[in-house]
């Protein structure tokens, strides 16, 4: 930056080398650290003023819940109605009995994509019974349906409005941006404050989590409808409503179906975590297993949630695609007849078979898995412990020591300098404000601990992601093998990633790092690969015809031109890693995530948990702002 300013002011002087300013800033920061270390640190205090203030607020809410008008006429009604909606779904799903529900899934699968998906629906849902988690699965499904229904009822109209009006879009975008950076945990504590614990507050948390993606994709879909088609419609005298109904919605339908699919996926990933605030269903098994570090106990529920995610994902995706093929070949009543037959078969079976999934068909995988995990732990003990200790001793501990022993103002200065250099003044000031917010909230030390874990995880994620992404972009074969794996990985609810990590590494910080790396690598790989593949073939051809080697092509053409996509990948990777590291607080990652979890389980720590939830949001915004500006900057020379 200042290099450019200097050149502008004194054009006669030779421009200083580009590395000079960063290196100078680095030297200054290092000198500051070496001279000031250990001073102005902010050690953690469980009784910090903000924590106590929130506790008092909680006590006030608890004692006024039934006579304050806001609660009496607003919040309490929301709680009751959502609770009833959930109960209704639950009742209907249980009334179907397991054969009935499996039949319905088969019928829906058939309608969406023929016998393959019908088989997937039947097999997938039957597997839920075989795993021995039928009741919990049905409750999870009911919770997902309730949340998605409400999220779509609000989100789709909002998305359509945002797609049609630039003003609405401008108003919504910053809100959605922040909502998407927020780690899942941050949604939970405020829900407890307002709605107590149980299905209603879990529904609210889930629907709030699922809504932004529905709004965003719907808005994008409506916005992208060809302007000429809309103009043509207007030129024929269509009203706005006619244009919406006959042009915009039909042309956006496929993408809106994707919005629904994504909302369901987000909801599935949230309902598991919502078990922390007593959401019924599979999540409670998983949370209990995680807190006891017992993989065998939670594995059936973990597999069940993945199976459910895959079935719902494939079904909704196929339904979205069907819309298009259906036009070309309208299918007759036979389609519905078969679907009806499958459903009826299920219903008939439901009356004949017991509604409870028969015990004899349940495959008990818990004990053998626990044994296998124990065996693995025991026999790989040397390897896993070595990996863990090396990382801890060489990376995590020194880094955390540095971050916690540095004066807070020096960290703030470093963040400001980094964000300014990478993203420009405005994001830098936002990042600084977030960091100072963390200090004021009394979360400094734990934030630095979380930051340490995030930094290490992000470094690994980005290296791995770049490597795999470049490999996939350069080799069709590799990409073809990798794609389905990435698809599957992105379908899984985030918490599932903790299972294998926990099995291998026990409850440590390293588990959270391992889990967040496997969680965040797939989108990074995908963005990098798409970015490199998106480089104009003409440019690649031109470079090849100039005699570039493969390596030259990569370093001088493809990577620089894919810069935007790669930086976006870095940004996404960081945000996702943070989300997972926070969840990893449950399995030994410590830091803010652990504070949040403690807040749920201990009455006196509610304030700390709440504030830590806010802290994760601040940390998320800070990391996002430090990295986000980079992709809006077209080339380094522009700012100089």
């Amino acid at each position, binding site marked *: 930056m200042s290099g450019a300013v200097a050149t502008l002011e004194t054009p006669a002087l030779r421009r200083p080398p580009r590395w000079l300013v960063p290196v100078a800033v680095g030297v200054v920061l290092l000198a500051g650290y070496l001279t000031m270390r250990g001073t102005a640190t902010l050690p953690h205090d469980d009784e910090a003023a903000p924590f106590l203030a929130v506790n008092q607020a909680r006590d006030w809410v608890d004692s006024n819940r039934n006579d304050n008008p806001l609660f009496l006429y607003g919040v309490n009604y929301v709680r009751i109605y959502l609770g009833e909606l959930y109960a209704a779904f639950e009742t209907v799903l249980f009334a179907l009995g397991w054969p009935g529900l499996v039949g319905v899934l088969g019928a829906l699968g058939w309608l969406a994509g023929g016998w393959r998906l019908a088989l997937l629906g039947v097999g997938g849902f039957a597997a839920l019974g075989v795993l021995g988690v039928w009741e919990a699965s049905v409750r999870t499904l009911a919770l997902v349906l309730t949340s998605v229904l409400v999220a779509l009822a609000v989100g789709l109209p909002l998305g359509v409005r945002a797609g049609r009006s630039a003003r609405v879009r401008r108003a919504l975008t910053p809100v959605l941006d922040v909502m998407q950076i927020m780690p899942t945990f941050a949604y939970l504590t405020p829900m407890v404050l307002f709605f107590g614990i149980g299905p209603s507050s879990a529904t609210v948390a889930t629907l709030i989590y699922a809504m932004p993606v529905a709004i965003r994709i719907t808005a994008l879909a409506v916005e992208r409808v*060809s302007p000429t088609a809309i103009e*043509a419609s207007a*030129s024929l*005298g269509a*009203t706005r409503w*006619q244009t919406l109904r*006959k042009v915009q919605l*039909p042309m956006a339908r496929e993408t809106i179906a994707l919005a629904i699919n994504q909302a369901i996926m987000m909801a599935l990933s949230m309902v598991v975590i919502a078990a922390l605030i007593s959401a019924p269903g599979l999540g409670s098994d998983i949370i209990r297993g995680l807190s006891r570090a017992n993989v065998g106990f939670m594995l059936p529920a973990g597999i069940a949630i993945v199976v459910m995610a895959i079935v719902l994902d494939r079904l909704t995706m196929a339904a979205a695609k069907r819309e298009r093929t259906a*036009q070309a070949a309208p299918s007759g009543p036979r389609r519905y007849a078969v679907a009806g037959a499958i459903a009826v078969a299920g219903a008939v079976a439901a009356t004949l078979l017991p509604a409870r999934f028969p015990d004899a068909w349940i495959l008990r995988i818990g004990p053998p898995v626990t044994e296998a995990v124990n065996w693995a732990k025991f026999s790989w003990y040397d390897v896993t412990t070595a990996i863990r200790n090396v990382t801890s001793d060489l990376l995590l501990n020194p880094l955390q020591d540095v971050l916690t022993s540095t004066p807070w103002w020096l960290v703030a200065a470093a963040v400001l300098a980094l964000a300014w250099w990478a993203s420009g003044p405005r994001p830098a000031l936002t990042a600084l404000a977030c960091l100072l917010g963390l200090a004021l909230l009394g979360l400094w030390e734990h934030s630095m601990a979380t930051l340490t874990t995030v930094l290490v995880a992000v470094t690994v994620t980005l290296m791995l992601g770049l490597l795999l992404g470049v490999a996939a972009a350069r080799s069709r074969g590799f990409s073809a093998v990798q794609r389905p794996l990435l698809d599957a990985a992105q379908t899984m609810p985030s918490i599932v990633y903790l299972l294998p990590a926990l099995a291998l590494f026990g409850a440590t910080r390293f588990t959270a790092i391992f889990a967040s790396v496997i969680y965040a690598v797939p989108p990074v790989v995908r963005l990098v690969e798409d970015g490199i593949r998106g480089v104009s073939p003409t440019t690649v051809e031109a470079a090849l015809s100039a005699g570039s080697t493969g390596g030259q092509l990569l370093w001088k053409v493809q990577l620089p031109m894919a810069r935007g996509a790669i930086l976006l990948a870095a940004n996404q990777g960081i945000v996702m890693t943070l989300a997972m590291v926070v969840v990893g607080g449950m399995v030994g990652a410590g830091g803010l995530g652990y504070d949040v979890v403690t807040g749920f389980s201990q009455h006196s720590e509610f304030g700390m948990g709440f504030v830590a939830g806010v802290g994760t949001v601040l940390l998320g915004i800070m990391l996002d702002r430090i990295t986000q500006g980079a992709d809006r900057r077209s080339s380094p020379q522009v700012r100089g």
Partner: protein
Amino acid sequence: MEAGQDSAAIEVGGLWKIFGPRADRVLNGPDKDLDPSELRRKTGCTAAVRDVTFTVRPGEMFVVMGLSGSGKSTLVRCLTRLVEPTAGQISIGGEDVRAASPARLRELRRHRVSMVFQHFGLLPHRKVIDNVAYGLEIQGVPRRDRHARAGEILSLVGLDGYADAYPDQLSGGMQQRVGLARALAVEPQVMLFDEPFSALDPLIRRDMQTEVVRLHREVGKTMVFITHDLSEALKLGERIAIMRAGAIVQLGTPEEVVGAPADDYVADFVRDVPRSHVLSLRWISREPEPDERLDGPVLPAATVIRDAVPAVTGSGRPIRVMDGDRLVGVVDRVDILSAMGEAPSARVPEARS
């Protein structure tokens, strides 16, 4: 038709369209006379249409020609207020368009004016027949009736048998035929064409131009045709308005534009047009020399120069150019040859039609 034969189909007076913040302030201040780049630098506004005035006669084919960015597409959108004009008057078939309520405006768009777009603007989720019937559907015409009407129009534009296809199954030229059919189906009095053939390849474009000429002859609609292609303008237009930087720099018949360009800009434009293909004998006829014989062949004054070549070369004597019974002048081989070789320049013609 409501409008009588002598009243204008479209009348536009003092029309302005300024994009950008505080367009009104620009319009009412001295800034409006700045040239485009200066205006943008100073106010951040773009004057896409500047003080445009013209009338279109009923049944006329009126062409607006200009390079990209000259404001021609904005102008045509202002006519039915797809783009809201900043100032000026527009009347279509005697109705004041700018004063029309939203409901009146919809009526106008539904029944009296329809438009064909450069990028077709077809609805990919609907069959061809339903695309063509879209305007009728908007009006609330029952399905059976609108399909019958759309079927007729499809055969008028030569798309028999494609009713059940989807737009993306058709070639570009056929897609634009669907666009044309959609505009025709509502039986408008006025049709607006916004560079309808620019996206098509040259051979298809020629077919489509011929098609439009044929339709214009058969259905007799008033047409306003926007193009950036001079040869298209000369081929189709009864009158041509040439736009530059939002203003009309010349308005006249093809002959006037080619024969008497109003300024260097227009002259530059028409430089490569073979004058002998556009101009008539009227433009090159001269007073006979005192010793010239006046017994050569007779040709009407409106004969295009190129078409006079056989008569001139076949005769040793100068051709007599007649306007009805009146002798306009004479033309000989030398005149014809020099007309065929001469480049146009901005000048005032000696004769005007």
